[in-house]
């Protein structure tokens, strides 16, 4: 593939990264808008450019089952899905994390049916929020490419051993052609060590995975998982730090823009962050002290970093891309409110749900949301959420 800057579709760049990471097994079922990633990987394997097993399965349930099997023998494993595909594989998705199998997935976020929709929102990933995977959100093509390397490095770390999902907004990112800076294979080899699994399945050393657990032991297994996810945090930070040293591209669990002196901050996750930064620039010119806080790491949730970024602000305007029907707000806002409850200097939180199923959220919309949200914050109208732009 060669290093250097290329104009490339984000899905293709991601597939190239997977090939550069020298995966052993890819098992996937095509589903819009993820299709280009696995199609391109199928090409790469068929052309003999990557010595890997590409398993064209009959469903997403089978895809994740194959991934579990291959990761269980210590093979570097990749898959990708979206929306209904994730719903279909959800049974095994939870098991992958519980069995601590370091599968890496590109999750091209797409709305859930019905109505049937192929366009982007975060309802699919929120469905599996509590499955025990590490979830990273990205904003652009370069981040998509980089996140693949970061994810394999994190997932396969002996102190982590967890699956990682790279969440990217379907179409908005997957089908965009962007300049992406490729790294060379030597750098990747240095960055991601050979995958050596302590308890891999092997006939010479029989072990059992995914056993039956009586009530006497189930609670202990869940505590072990909880600590495992929390303890992945320093490894994630180190993986990003080293990536920054190697490439000059630095990533953090919570990233801020113009937030130091901001009175109000927009909180986003995913590609919304790019628009939010532009709008913050616009509003700054109008004299509004507005900043942006972007959550890159969704699980484990970066509580300390998030609080550090927002405590002392007057208000936060959290923009969610999924509804929690009958709940207290969108998934991100609920998390944010929970993180700030009873904290000194906690800003008020106003929540908008926007951009469902790919409905465009323009800079003008962002401007409206921020100015209206600021008014809500000032008047104490902070309960629940507002479904932005809904007719009626």
């Amino acid at each position, binding site marked *: 593939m060669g290093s250097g800057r290329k104009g490339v579709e984000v899905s293709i760049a991601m597939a190239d990264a997977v090939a550069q990471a020298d995966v052993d097994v890819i098992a996937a079922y095509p589903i819009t808008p993820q299709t280009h990633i696995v199609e391109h990987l199928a090409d790469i394997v068929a052309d003999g450019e990557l010595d890997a097993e590409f398993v064209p399965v009959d469903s997403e349930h089978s895809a994740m089952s194959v991934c579990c099997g291959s990761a269980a023998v210590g093979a570097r494993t990749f898959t990708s899905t979206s929306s209904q595909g994730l719903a279909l594989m959800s049974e095994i998705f939870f098991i992958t994390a*519980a*069995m*601590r*199998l370091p599968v890496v997935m590109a999750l091209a976020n797409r709305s859930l049916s019905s109505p049937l929709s192929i366009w982007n929102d975060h309802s699919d990933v929120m469905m599996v929020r509590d499955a025990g995977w590490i979830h990273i959100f990205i904003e652009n093509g370069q981040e998509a490419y980089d996140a693949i390397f970061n994810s394999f490095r994190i997932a396969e770390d002996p102190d982590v*051993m967890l699956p990682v999902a790279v969440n990217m907004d379907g179409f908005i990112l997957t089908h965009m052609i962007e300049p992406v800076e490729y790294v060379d294979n030597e750098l990747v080899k240095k960055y991601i060590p050979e995958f050596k699994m*302590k*308890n891999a399945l092997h006939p010479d050393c*029989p*072990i*059992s*995975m995914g*056993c039956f*657990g*009586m009530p*006497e*032991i189930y*609670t*202990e*297994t869940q*505590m*072990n998982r909880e*600590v*495992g996810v929390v303890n992945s945090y320093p490894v994630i930070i180190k993986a990003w730090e080293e990536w920054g040293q190697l490439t000059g591209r630095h990533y953090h669990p919570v990233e801020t823009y113009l937030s130091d002196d901001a009175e109000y901050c927009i909180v986003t996750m995913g590609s919304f962050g790019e628009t939010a930064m532009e709008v913050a620039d616009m509003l700054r010119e109008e004299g509004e002290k507005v900043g942006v806080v972007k959550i890159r790491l969704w699980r484990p949730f970066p509580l300390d970093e998030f609080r550090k970024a927002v405590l002392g602000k007057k208000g936060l305007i959290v923009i969610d891309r999924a509804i929690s029907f009958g709940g207290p707000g969108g998934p991100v806002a609920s998390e944010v409110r929970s993180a700030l409850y009873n904290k000194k200097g906690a800003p008020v939180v106003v929540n908008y749900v926007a951009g469902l199923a790919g409905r465009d959220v323009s800079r003008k919309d962002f401007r409206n949301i921020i100015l209206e949200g600021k008014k809500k914050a000032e008047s104490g109208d902070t309960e629940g959420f507002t479904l932005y732009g809904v007719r009626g």
Partner: protein
Amino acid sequence: MAKAMDEIKWQELEIGAVVTEPGNAAEYKTGSWRSERPVVQKEQCIKCGVCWLFCPDMCIIRAVEGHFTANLNYCKGCGICARECPVGCITMISEEG
């Protein structure tokens, strides 16, 4: 098994709760779920082994005298042995009382 299941601390579990000791399921006596137990009239037993073949829990063992009987540490009391015995020498008895 080094430790009883209800004594294992979460820190002592392998990552992914992997079981590294093959066959240790035998350590867990699962017969307490049973509501009925099979009782064999050993004089009538023709030692054909049909109960041994059909038992879904593989808990039928052969006694020293040659007849077959259930290991009650694992028998769940399903009654398949009693149903399949060609001479009717197995009777299911209630565990109550």
